């Protein structure tokens, strides 16, 4: 006669303990209650104090002020904006200005950073020292110092528009900013853009097809002549058929200032210069570390397989280095975006400057405005880190980990 196996004792209490208190058990539960009580108390203090203080200063809390007229001008706007627009529009204008300076800064920072990294990795002793000096000097000076240096010293020392430094008679640099030709859309603009978009999509599809053929059947398809034709030949042919897509309006000196062309304000020039050179120093170090992190046996293995030096770099070294480079590189892009808030020091109309600066001093709605500003930066950084975790997950999956 066999006895049935006894059921395990119900462990409800244990499970509750585990859920509520983690590994620390009932002690953990007690600590959590105390902690929650303290947090609640601090929250109560903050809310009650803020309410009393706002009542004293006769400020109505809430986001209603966003619909009021701003009443001040912004000297660089990507979307139409006048002084009679609302604070909400000021917010959007500032955010767009932040994003545009970040994107331009990221582009130049990446280019300069990779160039400096190549200098530092160069077998030439002198060039690698020059790269090192650049990195050491730039990294050891505060960013705000560099922004002010470009703005107050270098750009202020430039001549006035009448004696501006011209580049081939197209681009003019003066203490009023950078004047560049502005494109004006012509009759052939729409077909040109459509054909260009088609070319890009078709080239991507071709590349996908070629990679599938290589990985699945081991068949090497040469695609670059077709890609070149799609990306350059096709738009050129369209241009011949339908006319120029756009013409450039050249800036001309009239009186004391320029007419025509578009003017890039000096604040933007200074901020972009400082942000891109500063971040480039950090990017250079990241890229250098990433490339050095690939074991030199990989390079040797590549050449023993008969790959050329360029192919070894392209197919073996760079993909492995990118795995190390991309996460800190994204971090630097994020830092650049956050650092663009230093624009407030030189009056470039970014989000912090026009919203947390001018709008705050006009409305006095400190809590709402600063919460919105912090919130938008937080959103950007959380989005970036979410994308990065997806990237990290894909990389670890492709490694078969």
């Amino acid at each position, binding site marked *: 006669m066999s006895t049935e196996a006894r059921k395990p004792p119900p462990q409800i209490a244990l499970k509750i303990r585990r859920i509520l208190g*983690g590994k620390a058990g009932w002690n953990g539960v007690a600590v959590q209650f105390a902690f929650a009580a303290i947090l609640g108390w601090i929250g*109560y*203090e903050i809310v009650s104090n803020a309410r009393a203080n706002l009542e004293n200063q006769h400020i109505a809390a809430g986001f209603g002020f966003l619909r009021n007229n701003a009443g001040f001008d912004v000297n660089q706007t990507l979307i139409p904006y006048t002084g009679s627009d609302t604070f909400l529009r000021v917010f959007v204008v500032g955010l767009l200005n932040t994003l545009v300076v970040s994107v331009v800064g990221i582009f130049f920072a990446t280019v300069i950073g990779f160039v400096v990294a190549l200098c530092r990795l160069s077998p*030439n002793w*002198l060039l690698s020292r020059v790269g090192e000096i650049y990195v050491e000097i730039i990294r050891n000076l505060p960013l705000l110092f560099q922004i002010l240096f470009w703005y107050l010293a270098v750009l202020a020392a430039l001549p006035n528009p009448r004696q501006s430094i011209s580049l081939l008679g197209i681009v003019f640099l003066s203490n009023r900013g950078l004047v560049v030709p502005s494109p004006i859309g012509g009759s052939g603009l729409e077909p040109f853009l459509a054909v260009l978009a088609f070319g890009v999509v078709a080239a991507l599809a071709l590349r996908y097809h070629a990679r599938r053929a290589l990985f699945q059947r081991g068949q090497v398809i040469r695609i670059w002549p077709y890609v070149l034709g799609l990306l350059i030949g096709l738009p050129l042919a369209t241009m011949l058929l339908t006319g120029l897509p756009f013409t450039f309006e050249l800036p001309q000196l009239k009186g004391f200032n320029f007419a025509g062309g578009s003017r890039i304000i000096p604040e933007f020039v200074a901020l972009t210069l400082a942000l891109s050179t500063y971040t480039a120093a950090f990017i250079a170090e990241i890229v250098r570390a990433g490339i050095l992190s690939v074991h030199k046996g990989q390079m040797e293995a590549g050449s023993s397989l008969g790959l050329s030096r360029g192919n070894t770099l392209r197919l073996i070294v760079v993909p492995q280095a990118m795995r190390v480079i991309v996460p800190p590189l994204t971090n630097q892009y994020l830092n650049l975006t956050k650092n663009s808030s230093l624009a407030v020091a030189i009056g470039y109309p970014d989000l912090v400057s026009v919203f947390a600066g001018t709008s705050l001093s006009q409305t006095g709605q400190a809590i709402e405005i*600063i919460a919105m500003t912090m919130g938008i930066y937080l959103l950007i950084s959380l989005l970036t880190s979410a994308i990065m975790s997806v990237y990290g997950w894909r990389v670890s999956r492709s490694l078969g980990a």
Partner: protein
Amino acid sequence: MSDIASSSFVRQDLLTERPAPVKTTGFVGLVRTRLFNSPTNILLTIVGALLLWFAVVPSVKFLVADAVWSGKDRTACLAENAGFVVGACWPYIQAKLPQLIYGFYPEAERWRVNLTFILAVALLVPLLVPRLPAKGLNASLFFVAFPVVAFFLLHGGGIKGFGLSWTAGLLELFDDSIIGAGQALLGLSKTSAVGPLLWVVGSFVVLLGTAIHWLILPLTWLRDQIQGAGQSVWADFAVTAVIVSLIAFGFGGGLRTGWRALASSIVAFLAIAVVIKLMGLDSGGLPVVTTNLWGGLLVTLVVSVTGIVTSLPIGIALALGRRSTIPLIRIFSIAFIEFWRGVPLITVLFFATYMLPLFLPGNFTVDGLVRALIGIALFTGAYQAENVRGGLAAIQRGQGEAAAALGLSWWKTTSLIVLPQALRHVIPNLVNSFISLFKDTSLVSIVALFDLLGSLRASFSDPKWSTPSTAFTGFAFAGIIYFLFCFGMSRYSLFVEHRLNAHRRN
């Protein structure tokens, strides 16, 4: 054996010497192998040399060759008076040097700033040299005693009470707030839909507040007695010293092993008494210099040192919280860290300047410098937390398990076994954060504090010294100062890293 010897060939004369291999070391070798070994490399060398030439020559010309070294005002630095294109205008720096270092700190009181600088260097240098002994004492002097002394030196003013009155005052404030919260809940319960629940919670909170009130009654009674008597500071000091020493004696192990704790407590209090007497804190202290008069390098150093000293405990607490097994504490720590790391420092400073005063009771005004310091401490603390967490993760599980096997509590395991090892691992990272903190202090100039960069910017607008080269001279000077500090710290961090990895080198 003999035939092998006879059949083998034995060379009778010496071979001619082969030429020495091409030298690959030393200066000539360097030139040959890494500068001029191929046409491309020669081209690169020329490019590098040109870059260096165009960077170095104008700088040297500006800083030294074309510089003006003496003068009374701007006229000395103008090209038409000097007779050549003027480089750096050093008399401008000489004239503005006090402002760049002390701000508007009164001239008669500047010895206090100098004394603080000297004290800081005297305490910091032995802390940084690994070979010198008594690191614990030195660290506690620098991180605990020095900030307090520096505050009374720089700011001035005296004290009206000591530990006992402060503790009693703080507890009273806390108690009042709790009772206030309970009464607010009770008031809310009359109108709310969940009235009974709020009533229960409110009554409980009020009850708690009343209990605390009775608990701290002896303390407040003693405080009132002391305040009534003359010489309140010294009476308070004596009572605090006795109480703290007894507590130290008790916790140190009582009659058995508590004597050492008792002795160190008495010595510490004696030292505090000496400092109080020396600085005359009991009788008003030094004349007060409000922080809006501070400026220049003084503010830069005050902000960075305070940031360093306060951010480390915050960082350690948050890092431990993030690794805690208690869910609420872990979630709170993660949210706190990620929040501060996700926003730019300038918005944190705006938050501290405009939003923080709204959160504090109306009668409680916080100095502008202190507000910026709070913002910087929170911001840097979050970054330090991630550094410390890296160190904690590097400690093997076995360390904690061994400590648990020996019967140590969580606190003892953490403070005696895990943290010392973890912190030693991350010293280079901590120093690197301090470098970025030092650079970030320049941001306080945006919220109307005049640090080195702010003072520099303010000095540009002085018409007495406005010349074409004023801005460049000022930036050159401030740049050299910033560079020396940051470069020094980064070299120190490399040195420590090298030392820590000594066992890994081969």
